[in-house]
């Protein structure tokens, strides 16, 4: 009596005929998928996609040392700094969104709406390009060329993802049953204390999965450093492709694979965290019902 899985609400445990039909459907779809894969492999082999030199050249020890490893580190640096910046901005603006002061609330709303509507690519590229055009340049801050690129990439990532994280913060705080805060006020806590002691610890747990999922997106977005020629993974792959024209596709696929491994590992952390914290917050329906019960007494 094994039900296939939760996502399949459209059929329940199948009878013998249904099982037979499913088995045939499975076999046929495996054959179809295998045929597509075999055809692709055959086509690729005809274009000498699997030729050893095409894979070995971009993975040469020297290239690994001078391109892949430094570029991977550059990607991770941009990710780490961008995440820290985005989290800080997200917390500040997120608090602004639920602030008691209407001016602060309005300004944070404008910030979120504006930066969520603009392509991240422009948020990275425009400041980088017009730097110096209006009298002020970041050169006076003493960055070298690389540092300057990293700065603009990190600032763009932080500003954009900060807006997204602020929105996650707000919905995390709003998703908490109001009875939690009410109970805090009822025992005589002030607004700040209610936020600090009762609302935030629970809201944090609520939104942690969404925050981590956004960090996976931020990791992928570091590839946009390409538009300001920040030497990240994709940029490195392209340089390798220029030197070894025959291995261009292979170099890009290797870079894509590295991104995949990084992002997949990070998203597995998300799932783990989700599982660990799932039972620790006040469930909204129960708490709301409780408030209603109290109110009707």
């Amino acid at each position, binding site marked *: 009596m094994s039900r296939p899985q939760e996502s399949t*609400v*459209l059929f329940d445990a199948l009878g013998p005929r249904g099982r037979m039909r499913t088995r045939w459907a499975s076999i046929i779809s495996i054959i179809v998928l295998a045929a597509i894969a075999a055809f692709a492999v055959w086509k*690729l082999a005809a274009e000498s996609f699997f030729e050893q030199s095409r894979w070995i050249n971009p993975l040469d020890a020297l290239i690994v040392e001078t391109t892949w490893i430094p570029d991977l580190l550059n990607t991770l640096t941009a990710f780490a700094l961008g995440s820290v910046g985005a989290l800080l901005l997200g917390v500040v603006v997120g608090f602004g969104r639920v602030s008691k002061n209407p001016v602060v609330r309005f300004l944070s709303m404008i910030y979120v709406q504006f930066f969520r509507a603009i392509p991240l690519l*422009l948020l990275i590229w425009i400041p980088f*390009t017009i730097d110096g055009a209006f009298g002020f340049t970041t050169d006076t801050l003493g960055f070298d060329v690389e540092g300057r690129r990293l700065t603009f990439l990190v600032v763009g990532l932080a500003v954009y993802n900060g807006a997204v994280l602020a929105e996650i913060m707000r919905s995390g705080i709003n998703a908490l049953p109001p009875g939690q805060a009410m109970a805090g006020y009822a025992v005589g806590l002030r607004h700040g204390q209610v936020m600090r002691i009762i609302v935030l610890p629970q809201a944090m747990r609520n939104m942690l999965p969404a925050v981590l999922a956004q960090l996976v997106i931020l990791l*992928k977005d570091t590839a946009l450093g390409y*538009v300001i020629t920040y030497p990240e993974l994709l940029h490195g792959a392209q340089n390798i492709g220029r030197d070894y024209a025959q291995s261009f596709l292979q170099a*890009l*696929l290797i870079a*894509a694979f590295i991104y995949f491994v990084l992002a997949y590992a990070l998203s597995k952390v998300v799932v783990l965290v989700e599982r660990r914290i799932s039972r620790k917050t006040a469930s909204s329906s129960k708490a709301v019902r409780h408030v209603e019960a109290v109110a009707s007494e």
Partner: protein
Amino acid sequence: MFDNFDLMVAALWDGLFTTIWVTLASFAIALVIGAILAVMHVSPAPPARWAANAYTQTFRNVPLLAVLFILFFGFPKIGISAENWVWALVGLGTYTGAFVGETLRSGINSIPLGQAEAARSIGLTFGQSLSSVILPQAFRSVIAPIGTLLTALVKNSALVLAIGVPELSAQAQRLINDNRDRFDLWAVIIGVLISYLIVNLIISYFVRLAEKRAVFVR
């Protein structure tokens, strides 16, 4: 101020037009791919689910820019060539399709089990209950997330400037890079930012409208 203002407006207008049709065309592709993926996700045959899962995981964990580069720079190396706008549509469509598939699947999963049970108990087949009971309800509950995907697609379409499609951001880049002294820098920047803001505001307005009209009581 505002030297050659009409030239700038014409260039940005061209770019906006390209952005809009690239977005709409790749969104159509994404909806088709997403619908196929969603059906595969809930299908009784395990290999179909595995294939859909592999597709989704691939595109969720690889940057869009890497996908576009593999298509535009990589595929000609294995003998598959096309115009750059074709690769833009294919790249944006396949990438967004994975997210549409996930959204549709969660929409299907949000339909209470009782609906599917009721459909089957009156004798509807898998296909019938899907097409006349589950999907009509699922579509309504995914309007808002699909709208979010559309605004994300408008922003993502800026990336195709890297493969030489002259959309809005590419036009702004060209205006700023080539004509530093002829065009007022601020005018270009404000023009391009406002264009994106307006497009996204219009989309979210219509999404909200559609959401309101699709409200139903179960």
